[in-house]
């Protein structure tokens, strides 16, 4: 573990000494729990409609697919029409687009970003390399199968997928959400141990707690 993550004594600017334990102070160990929707079905349906009409994508370009996200948001394709917007912070986003291959180093950041998002949250895997490794099937640094590490709601195939394919994919995701089938966050909570075991098998430099809100 890196020295700055160790538990240690620190002297503040006012001269007071205090103990810091970065792993505990900055993060949270509590595992996620399964969250149920509203008890009344019509309310939950209404919420699901709103969720499907307001997809906020986390602005995290994890791979080369990110280059087709810009045309998606500009005049030719204009995904804003469908309620799709960018959000720069994981707290406010509810859709994580894994835009292409994930190297092990990025996987760690993607997991953290995913865990910081709020339930319900959705993951879309973009490109063949998220599905089965694609071009990088024999690479030592990219994961081959995204749904081993994060609950994926939808894959969009192609290398790389065209913006039209992305728009069609987002429309399909909306259908899933409206049907109440996009419960990836709850799946993640249910099979938390399995996901963590998979993640830890790949990420050797695991200097974060199991769950960091």
């Amino acid at each position, binding site marked *: 573990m890196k020295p700055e993550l160790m538990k240690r004594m620190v002297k503040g600017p006012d001269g007071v000494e205090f103990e810091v334990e970065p792993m505990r102070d900055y993060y949270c160990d509590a595992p996620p729990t399964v969250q149920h929707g509203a008890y009344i079905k019509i309310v939950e349906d209404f919420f699901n409609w709103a969720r499907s009409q307001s997809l906020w994508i986390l602005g995290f*370009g994890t791979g*080369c697919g990110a280059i087709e996200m810009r045309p998606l948001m500009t005049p030719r394709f204009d995904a804003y029409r469908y309620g799709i917007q960018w959000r720069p912070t994981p707290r406010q986003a509810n859709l994580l687009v894994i835009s292409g291959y994930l190297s092990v180093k990025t996987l760690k950041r993607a997991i953290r970003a995913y865990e910081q998002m709020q339930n319900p949250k959705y993951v879309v895997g973009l490109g063949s390399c998220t599905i089965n490794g694609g071009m990088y099937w024999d690479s030592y640094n990219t994961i081959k199968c995204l749904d081993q590490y994060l609950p994926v709601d939808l894959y969009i195939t192609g290398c790389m997928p065209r913006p039209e394919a992305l728009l069609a994919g987002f429309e399909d995701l909306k259908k899933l959400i409206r049907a109440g089938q996009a419960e990836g966050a709850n799946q993640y909570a249910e099979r938390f141990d399995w996901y963590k075991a998979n993640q830890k098998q790949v990420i050797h430099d695991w200097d974060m707690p199991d769950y960091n809100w």
Partner: protein
Amino acid sequence: MAYTPDRSQYPAMKADGSLDIDLASGKYLKLWQGPNHPGITGNMSVELTVCGDEVVAGKTHVGYLHRGFEKLMERRTFIQCFPIVCRICVPEPDFNEYCYAAAVEELAGIEVPEKANWIRALILEMGRINSYLMYLGGQAGALGQGVIGQWTTYARDLMLDRFEELTGARIYHMFIMPGGVRDHLPEGFQGRMQETLKEVECTLKDVWEVMFCNAVFKRRTVGMCVIDPAWLDEYGVTGPNARAAGVAKDVRRDAPYLVYPELDFEPVTGHDSDIYTRADVRRRDLLMSVDLIRQILARMPKDGPIMAPMPSMLHWRIPRGETYVRGECSRGEYGYYLVTDGSGYPRRVNVRGPSYTHAMSLLERMIVNVNISDVASLMVSLHTYPPEIER
């Protein structure tokens, strides 16, 4: 009255040149710009240590996009390498194809037909326009002027249409093969290309008026983040970054390749080496590319072969040798170092991307004493792209 910041609060330098930063003192703050950050060029991150509003030290972290291309190519035959090389660099993939093809051709002793060279130059210039359009949008976006990005991406989409009609793909074209190019120009391509070029010029005129003539934009960029011409050799600065510092480093002119010796152009240079000049050099370079495409279209031979006679791809072996082939991409000198050992596989391929030096040692040097607000703008103005660094 000139403002002089109080440097007494700044960290002392230790004997080995590193800074004595005591984070526990509370005077300094660690800020991570990236990888999940809109103000970063691609998937990389910069670890900033700030004191007040100013950066006292910056450290680039890369490796988020590492796929190990150089290793993967060692276990693929020469022709199997060709479809994966373009994936090294997304905004301008054709340079990988060209440099790889040229290096292989040189070692295998293949003579490329003339028309293929013209089409290659056309593709490379089209890719350069795309990359610059993307840059202009990014530079304005880093300063909060989102509308420029909308316009330039629109123009880029038009250019991608031309790519699609020529190569069949928007981003990864896989068009420049070892030995030549895959196809002739389609019917009526020239006319549609001229239309697109007009549209691009029109967009650039708007960009000039709204972005370059804007008082706030000038205020934010003129005189900011200057590259000292003395650093050019130390840090291996190439391309528009060097040209903005007044040094006409342009591989197209210094070591002409393809059909550039026959074309009429002069490398664009600037004087002030600040963010504004770098943006302006790129804008003028873009206009020059538009002009070059017109020249290429007018002078391209009407017919002729586009592929050299090639050996059987499956039994293709290249004798032992090593070479380095370079080209001028939109960010600077792009090169492939290829070593062969007489087998059907490359022994070693090394990709020399211009961002390798720009985003690492040069950025770490330049970022000191820059305001937090200007970090994104500085990074974009170096026009770096991380996959070139880590491949």
